[in-house]
C-alpha cells in the first residue's frame, strides 16, 4: 500500500461544494491531489456567457485555496455521443431516460476515469454520497450515510474495476456536515447553492429545451376507454403519474398521465392519484449491471428503488434467459416508469441496477405505458 503522499488522486471538481470538500478532505489526508473540471456541455449563449465558466472559476478559487493544481478536460463530444443521443432517443421512443445514470456510466467513471489514469492517478474521487468497502478482495458500494443525499441510485452501473479505483470521501458524512467543513475551511464554494435538474438543461424550461431538439407532435389525450379529453403537446413532455400541465377541468378527482401510445401518438389519462392503471406488480429490466461483477444465477429477494429518493420496496429478482430480469414487487407499485433505473439493494449494499424496459401486471406487460 502506497503512502498517501505517493498516491495520486484525481478529484472531479464541478465547482460545487461537495466536490470541493472531497478535495479538501483528501488534501488534509495527505494525498497528492489533482483537481480536474469536466466540460461536457457547451451552453454558450448569444452574449458568449456559459455557466461552465462560472463553475470553472469556482474550481480555480477552491484549488488555489487548497494549493492543488487544477486543469480542465473537454468531453463534449463523448457526452453528446453517449449521453445526449441516448437521452433524445429515449424521449423519441416515449420513455423517460435517466441521463445522470448514463453520464456516470459513460463519462464520469469511464472517459474521465481513463483520463485520470492517463495522468498517473491511483484513484478517482468525486463528491458523490456513496461508500466503497473492500471485503475479501471484492469491492462493495454502500449507500451514503446521509439517507436524503444517497446517490447510489445514479451509480448503479459501476463495475468492480471502477469501484477498485474510486474514492467517495463524503460517503460517511451528512450534507450539513459537508457544508460545515466547507465553511470552516473558508472555501469559496461553502455557500454555493446546490445545482438542480439535469446538468445540460440547468434552470431552463425543460419543455422549451426539449422542443429545440425533438419536434413536438401534438396529439389526442384520452382515457384508456377511448374517451377523448383534449390535446397533448407532444408525448415526450409527459411522464407516468404526472398531474401538472394536462389542462383537463371538470368535476371529480384530478387527472393523471397513466400511459402513452407512441405509435398512435396518444396520451392516456385517468382520474385520481391512485388510478388503477398506474399500478403494476412487476417489471422487466434490461442492461443490468451487478457491482460485484457476478450476475445472480437464480432468483433472490432484495429491496429496490424505481426512482431516486424513493423508499426501498421488497422485490424478487428472477434472471431471464436473455440477460433480462423479471422483478416482481411484494406490494403493488405506483407509476413505475420505463426508461428509468431500477436499483437493487441488500441492506446498505447497492447490488447494481438495470433499465426498466416493461412494466408488468397480472403476468402481462402493459403496452399502454410505452
Amino acid at each position, binding site marked *: 500500500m502506497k503512502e498517501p503522499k505517493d498516491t495520486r488522486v484525481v478529484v472531479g471538481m464541478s465547482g460545487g461544494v461537495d466536490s470541493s470538500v472531497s478535495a479538501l478532505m483528501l488534501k488534509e489526508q495527505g494525498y497528492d491531489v*489533482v483537481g*480536474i*473540471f469536466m*466540460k461536457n456541455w457547451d451552453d454558450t449563449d448569444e452574449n458568449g456567457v*456559459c455557466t*461552465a*465558466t462560472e*463553475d*470553472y472559476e469556482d*474550481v*480555480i478559487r477552491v484549488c488555489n485555496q487548497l494549493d492543488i*493544481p*487544477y*486543469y*480542465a*478536460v*473537454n468531453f463534449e463530444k463523448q457526452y453528446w455521443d453517449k449521453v445526449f443521443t441516448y437521452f433524445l432517443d429515449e424521449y423519441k421512443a416515449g420513455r423517460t431516460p435517466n441521463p445522470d445514470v448514463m453520464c456516470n456510466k459513460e463519462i464520469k467513471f469511464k472517459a474521465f476515469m481513463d*483520463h485520470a489514469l*492517463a*495522468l*498517473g492517478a491511483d484513484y478517482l474521487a468525486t463528491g458523490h454520497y456513496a461508500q466503497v468497502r473492500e471485503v475479501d478482495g471484492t469491492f462493495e458500494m454502500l449507500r451514503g450515510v446521509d439517507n436524503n443525499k444517497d446517490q447510489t441510485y445514479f451509480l448503479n452501473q459501476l463495475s468492480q474495476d471502477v469501484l477498485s479505483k474510486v474514492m467517495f470521501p463524503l460517503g460517511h458524512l451528512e450534507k450539513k456536515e459537508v457544508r460545515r467543513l466547507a465553511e470552516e475551511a473558508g472555501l469559496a464554494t461553502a455557500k454555493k447553492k446546490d445545482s438542480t435538474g439535469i446538468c445540460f438543461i440547468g434552470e431552463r424550461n425543460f419543455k422549451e429545451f426539449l422542443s429545440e431538439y425533438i419536434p413536438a407532435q401534438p396529439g389526442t389525450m384520452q382515457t384508456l376507454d377511448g374517451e377523448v379529453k383534449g390535446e397533448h403537446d407532444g408525448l415526450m413532455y409527459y411522464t407516468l403519474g404526472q398531474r401538472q400541465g394536462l389542462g383537463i377541468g371538470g368535476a371529480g378527482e384530478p387527472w393523471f398521465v397513466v400511459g402513452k401510445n407512441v405509435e398512435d401518438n396518444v396520451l392516456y389519462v385517468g382520474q385520481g392519484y391512485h388510478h388503477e392503471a398506474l399500478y403494476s406488480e412487476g417489471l422487466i429490466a434490461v442492461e443490468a449491471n451487478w457491482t460485484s461483477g457476478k450476475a445472480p444465477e437464480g432468483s433472490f429477494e432484495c429491496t429496490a428503488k424505481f426512482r431516486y429518493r424513493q423508499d426501498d420496496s421488497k422485490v424478487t429478482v428472477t434472471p431471464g434467459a436473455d440477460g433480462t430480469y423479471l422483478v416482481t414487487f411484494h406490494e403493488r407499485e405506483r407509476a413505475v416508469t420505463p426508461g428509468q433505473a431500477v436499483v437493487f439493494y441488500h441492506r446498505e449494499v447497492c447490488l447494481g441496477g438495470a433499465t426498466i424496459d416493461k412494466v408488468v401486471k397480472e403476468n402481462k406487460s402493459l403496452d399502454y405505458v410505452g
Partner: protein
Amino acid sequence: MDSIYLDHAAATPIHPEVIDVITTVSKETFGNPSSVHLYGRKSRKLLDEARRTVAESINADDKEIIFTSGGTEADNLAIIGTAMANQHKGRHIITTRIEHHASLHAAEYLEHQGFEVDYLPVYENGRVKLEDLKRLLREDTILVSVMMVNNETGVIQPIQELSELTRDHQACFHSDIVQAFGLYEIDTQKLPVDLLAVSSHKISGPKGTGFLYMREGTALQALQHGGEQERKRRAGTENVPSVAGFEKAVKIMGEVREEKLKAYQRYRDTFLKTLQDEAVNFSINGVKEMSAPSIINLSFPGMNVETLLTNFDLSGIAASSGSACTAGSVEPSHVLSEMYGTEDERTTNSIRFSFGMANHEEQMVESGRRISQIIRRLS
C-alpha cells in the same frame, strides 16, 4: 523535480535589471508626467527617454511611438483605429486567420461593423503567398494586417515583400511583431509598414506595457478617450515605472539579440534531437527552416492535447497549446485549423514549446526525456 519553463511565447521571466529599474522608478518618480511641476517633469523625462530608446530600436522617430497596455491594445488601436479613421477611403481590409486573437477578433469586430474583411489563405507550411495579396488587394482596401512571427508555430511571414505591395497603395500595412521583436532586427526605414504592435512581457519586460509604432502621417482614431496623453492617440496616465522597465528590457535585448537567436536555435535542435533519439513519434507543424527558433510546434499522433499538457505540467514541463476556453478546456488551435483544416487531428494533438531566457541547454535534454517518458506511457 525541477520544473522547466518552455512557454516563453506566453510570458518571459523579467530580467533582474528590469526589476531594479521598475523598483527604483516606483520609489523615486511618482509624479504624473502631464503635471507642470518638478515631479511631473521627472516622470516626463523618463517617459521621453524610454520613447527614444524604443523608437531607436526599430529605427523610428519618437513621435511614431504610442505606449499602450500591451500587444492586444496595440493591435486593436492599429486595426480598429486606422479603419475608423480611413473609412471614407474604403471599407475593405485584408488579414489572415492565423493572427493572434488580438488582431483576429479586432478584424471580426470590424466585420460586424460593416467592414469587408478578406482573409489571405494560409498554406500547409504556415505561410501566406504574395500573389494572394496581389489578387485580393483592391482600390478601396484601407488596411492589410499580417503578423511577422506566428505565436503558435513560429513561422515567419514575408512581411518585407508583402508590405512592398502596399507601398504605393492607400492601404496601411500593419504587422503584429510581438513574437519577432527582440529576436529579429526591425528597421522601419527599410520595412515599408505603417503600423507595428509590440509587447513588453515577451522580451523580459513587465506585463501591462507595449507600444504601437505608427508611421508619421498615418491617420488613426483614438479608441480610448480622456486626457491628451500620447499625442491624443491614447488617453490615460502613462505607466511610467513599467515603461521605464520596458525601456531597460529593450536595451538589454539590443545587446544580446544575436546571441539569443543562436542559443534558441541550439535549444530547439537539442530538444528535437532528444525526442528523436528517444524515438518519440512526432511531426513539426510548419517548417522549421522558415520559423523563429524560439517557438516549435509539435504534433504527437494519437495523443490528445489536454492529456499531454496536464501530464507535462504534473511532470514539471510548462508548455501550451492554442488557447483555452473560458471554462479551462483547450480549444482546437485556430492556427493549425487554418493550415490543415478543422478535421485534421493535428489541431487537437499539438503542443507549442517556446524557448527563452529561463532555459539552459541541459534542460532541453531533460525535458525531451520527460516528454518521451510520458508519450511512451500513453502510447
